[in-house]
């Protein structure tokens, strides 16, 4: 019987297989950041172990890094300690680190792909749930806990229980105003935040094949929000073109050998998925969340749902709680929801294409009075590229704040936070209670919706701007 993409990658990495035990899997790339690695290094130290493959390991600083005054000492002692600990650990164990201030620094899931370290057919792990991002290249990529981080550092392997496979087929073509973010929010709303549990999702179909690598990363990034172990997309010409020429991409004969192998990484015609979900692209529209988990979303044109409309008792309860926390009432049109803050960034939507699409909407317009808009590039490289294209000027001319790269308000571990009761439209991936700051309220949106929302001061899509459009260049 044929095999799925995920099964092929898995099989190619089995180091040891014994009946009744989990497979021991080889790990091709181990990404580290400051939050989940300290106890792992400490464990190595206590047991006198080394990092087995420093040449397959790389670290960056992202969660705690400030986005302003990066040349000044970090004020919060906990953040500072975590960063200093990572620096010491990397120095002691010989791990390559891109610290704050380095040109390759940025959110770990933006850094790996842009260096060309993420390639098709690899196994990629990181002590971070959004490692699923790297699946966009046809890699098997998943988040791990701190004990597992130590295990990979010491052995470059992980014992792993088998997974199930789910195909998410998106037929047809996405409408012009629909982005990858809208698509994945709609998928999560459809299958639920637990719908992917135990599965590796494979996104396929015409709509997926037409997506850029940035868009594919946005989709795979949020697989974890459906509870999935990982998300994957089969590599194709788009993937190869993205990887080619990057600092760690294979060259010459290696490149040819790699591409030949990568072309085999497709689900066989006769392979069987454990579950299949089909979505018609044409039915999709800009999508936003109204609740406190990423599955509580609806098309922007809809209204806040009535909790009573949920048949499932726990969903009904969750919706009631969410509306209370979000300060919303049933039946309120989503477009009427006013925001204080707009955040464009994160490993979901902090890449160059995301900044371009937000800039295209806001160019020649102004951020509404009383709204603050933060633009936080996913990495220093993204920031440099944006500056080269003049996007930073477009944003600042509109009244937005152009910040330094990092996770920033995606989780508010640094000073970029919502105040209690404040409401944001955010291009990040989690709208959990307090995620962006204690008492803060988050609506997950795409970059174009974020930009339109910033201009109008309430949730909106670029289409809503047509009346008050200011000609570009004025």
């Amino acid at each position, binding site marked *: 019987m044929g095999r799925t993409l995920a099964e092929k990658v898995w099989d190619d*990495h089995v*180091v*040891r297989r014994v009946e009744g035990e989990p497979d*021991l899997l*080889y790990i*091709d*790339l181990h990404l580290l950041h400051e939050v989940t690695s*300290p*106890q792992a290094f*400490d*464990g190595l130290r*206590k*047991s006198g*172990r080394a990092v087995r*493959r*420093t*040449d*397959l*390991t*790389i670290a960056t600083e992202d969660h705690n890094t400030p986005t302003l005054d990066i040349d000044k000492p970090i004020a919060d002692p*906990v953040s500072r*300690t*975590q960063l200093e*600990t990572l620096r010491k650990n990397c120095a002691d164990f010989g791990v*390559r680190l891109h610290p704050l201030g380095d040109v390759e620094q940025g959110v770990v899931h933006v850094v790996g792909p842009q260096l*060309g*370290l993420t*390639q098709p057919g*690899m196994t990629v792990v990181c002590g971070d749930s959004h490692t699923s991002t790297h699946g966009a290249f046809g890699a098997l990529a998943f988040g791990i806990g*701190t*004990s597992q981080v*130590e*295990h990979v550092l*010491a*052995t*470059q*392997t992980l*014992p792993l229980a088998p997974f199930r496979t789910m195909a998410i087929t998106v037929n047809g073509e996405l409408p012009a105003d629909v982005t990858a973010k809208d698509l994945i929010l709609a998928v999560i709303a459809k299958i639920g935040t637990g719908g992917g549990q135990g599965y590796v999702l494979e996104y396929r179909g015409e709509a997926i094949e037409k997506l850029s690598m940035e868009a594919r990363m946005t989709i795979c990034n949020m697989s974890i929000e459906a509870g999935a172990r990982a998300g994957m997309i089969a590599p194709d010409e788009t993937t190869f073109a993205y990887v080619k020429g990057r600092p*760690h*991409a*294979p060259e010459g004969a*290696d*490149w040819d*050998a*790699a591409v030949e*192998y990568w072309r085999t990484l497709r689900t066989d015609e006769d392979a069987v998925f454990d579950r299949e979900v089909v979505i018609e692209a044409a039915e999709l529209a800009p999508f936003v969340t109204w609740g406190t988990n990423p599955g509580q979303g609806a098309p922007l044109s809809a209204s806040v749902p009535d909790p009573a409309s949920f048949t499932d008792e726990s969903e009904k309860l969750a919706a009631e709680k969410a509306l209370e926390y979000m300060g919303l009432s049933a039946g309120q049109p989503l477009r009427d929801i006013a925001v204080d803050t707009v955040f464009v960034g994160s490993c979901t939507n902090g890449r160059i294409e995301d900044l371009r699409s937000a800039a295209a909407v806001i160019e020649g317009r102004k951020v509404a009075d009383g709204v603050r808009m933060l633009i936080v590039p996913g990495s220093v490289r993204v920031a440099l590229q944006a500056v080269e294209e003049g996007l930073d000027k477009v944003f600042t001319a509109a009244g937005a704040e152009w910040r330094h790269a990092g996770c920033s308000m995606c989780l508010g571990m640094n000073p970029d936070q919502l105040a209690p009761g404040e409401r944001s439209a955010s291009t990040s991936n989690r709208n959990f209670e307090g995620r962006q700051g204690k008492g803060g309220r988050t609506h997950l949106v795409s970059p174009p919706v974020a930009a339109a929302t910033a201009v109008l001061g309430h949730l909106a899509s670029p289409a809503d701007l047509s009346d008050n459009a200011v000609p570009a260049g004025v």
Partner: protein
Amino acid sequence: MEAFTTHTGRAVPLRRSNVDTDQIIPAHWLKKVTRDGFEDGLFEAWRKDDAFVLNQPEREGATVLVAGPDFGTGSSREHAVWALQNYGFKAVISSRFADIFRGNSLKNGLLTVVLPQETVDVLWKLTESDPAVEVTVDLVARKVVAPGVDADFELDENARWRLLEGLDDISITLKSEADIATHEGRRPAFKPRTQAA
């Protein structure tokens, strides 16, 4: 991980049930970046009370904690196990442990022993009437022995083997070193490296 075969030491009677991991180690200790130094956080709130059993001079140096039922409930933090070990405990006896805590403890080499509540009661009385009395936790014979106590306990064979051999997950994987090296020899040259090896 240190091997555990048999251990003899004085006991601490903790006459409380449902001791959750937040009581074992409060959340603010989770910001630490090491695996040691958690001993001062162990039962932090209770230790502010001079009458708390751990504060009694005769309990100093005790290594076996005898606790009430449902020990280790609540958050999954592994720090709870580290705190008990950092303080010096080698074994915890209770009639019932929370699952995740038990898993974490066995992974880290802290032996958690399940005994009937009647036996726990006997151990409590014993150590309360004579704090100097020693309790032996024998993993080879799967027995807890103290004056007047000779109690068998169960532990699944795999967990027992790992403790007896002092094997953590990493040590077990490293037994497959040859397989790992073979796989590394087969890896295609085009796979990326972050730096020269």
